[in-house]
């Protein structure tokens, strides 16, 4: 083996700047997509459990449709497929304002929203039906019951699986490089191309993802403790 390690390529020249930009873009696309996924997941997950069939059908359709198509296909769909359907002005605006970023963000958010939906639905179904009855028996409307009781309890119950999927979302944001979003993986490859140092470049990328994921997991553990329902989740004191 005669590979010459040269770690200094990571901080000489433009590498550091590229990686930093990649990191920021990964964070931006992931955070926005996460918010979109959370909103879609909560709304559709709750809709799938309501005592009114049309809402259940709509939400089920959304989940099955988005869950069963590969993320890559969604990326292409939002980037190549959707813009031509939009009015000319919107298209022009988009292509002057990083269309690939918005397409990637939508693809990621909508795809993970469908997964989040499943998680939320499972959380809601684990709440005894009598909780719902007690709430409606006091005169709250179904919408109020969901907003004030069912969803808040479910969210507290699903922190571990939701964390898991949030990490998947972050990692899946790398798929956006296929529609040329210059996120972290894209930039790591750029470093590799310019320096011809594949191991160093990809190690840098790997370590950044690892640190991000561990950081998120640590934050979510604190969130879980902070919002734990007394008596229900007795973990780690």
């Amino acid at each position, binding site marked *: 083996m005669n590979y010459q390690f040269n770690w200094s390529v990571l901080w000489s020249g433009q590498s550091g700047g590229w990686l930093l930009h990649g990191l920021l873009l990964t964070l931006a696309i992931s955070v926005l997509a996460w918010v979109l996924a959370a909103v879609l997941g909560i709304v559709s997950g709750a809709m799938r459990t309501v005592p009114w069939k049309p809402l259940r059908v709509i939400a089920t359709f959304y989940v099955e449709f988005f869950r069963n198509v590969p993320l890559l296909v969604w990326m292409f769909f939002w980037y190549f497929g959707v813009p031509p359907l939009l009015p000319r002005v919107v298209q022009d605006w988009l292509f002057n304002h990083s269309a690939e970023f918005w397409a990637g963000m939508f693809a990621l958010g909508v795809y993970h929203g469908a997964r989040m939906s499943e998680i939320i639905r499972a959380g809601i179904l684990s709440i005894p039906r*009598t909780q719902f*009855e*007690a709430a409606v*028996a*006091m005169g709250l409307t179904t919408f109020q019951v969901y907003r004030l009781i069912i969803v808040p*309890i479910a969210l*507290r119950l699903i922190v571990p699986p939701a964390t898991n999927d949030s990490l998947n979302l972050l990692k899946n944001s790398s798929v956006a490089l296929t529609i040329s979003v210059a996120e972290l993986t894209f930039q790591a490859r750029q470093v590799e191309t310019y320096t011809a140092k594949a191991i160093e470049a990809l190690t840098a990328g790997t370590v950044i993802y690892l640190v991000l994921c561990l950081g998120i997991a640590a934050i979510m553990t604190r969130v879980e403790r902070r919002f734990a*329902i*007394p008596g229900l989740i007795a973990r780690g004191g």
Partner: protein
Amino acid sequence: MAPPAIEFKSVSKWFGTHQVLTDIDLAIAPGEVVVVCGPSGSGKSTLIRCVNGLEPFQRGDLVVLGESIGRPGVSMSALRTRVGMVFQSFNLFPHMTVLENITLAPVRVRGLSAAEAEKTARTLLERVRIPDKAENYPANLSGGQQQRVAIARALAMQPKIMLFDEPTSALDPEMINEVLDVMTDLAKEGMTMMVVTHEMGFARRVAHRVVFMDAGRVVEEATPEVFFAAAKSDRAKDFLSKILSH
């Protein structure tokens, strides 16, 4: 005579093809305390759950506080603010403190200010004899305390009728009386109450009338004195012999 607070008129209900209530005729006067008893599966829960619309029924009519329910256009939410319900499994909201549990509906449904609602809630907690538990979470209360909070929570809506579905069945024996005492107070204050319970001591002391159900029918109704001393039907006698023997 004042019109009944609750009036079942030939109410029948099916779950699929299985008939669980058959031609129920029953009128409950304002201020009356009615204990509903009967063997498991006889339809007691279903009966009282009809009163606040938790169970729809297919035939007959049910008039609650002057309103015929089960007809399209009747606002269930409005009715439910006037009918409180207490369940066997307490059903306090685990992510809210006792105070939050009690003030939720008064604020969200009746539109009270948080301060007014809290004031009422604290008074109610005194009434159910746990004034010092307002800031606790349900998980940190005993079963008896949780059930008393559930009663306070229902009372916070100032209901005209209170429904109880086996309120003491999930409790350890030493906690049953603290809940029954609160219910007894409530009965003395003139609340209209429909209580499904196997606590025959409570029925004897507090009820104005005992309704015995079997297989979806009201088989017998009588004052507690008559019911316990001289039940007419064999099924009621059989039921009583089983329940009083332990």
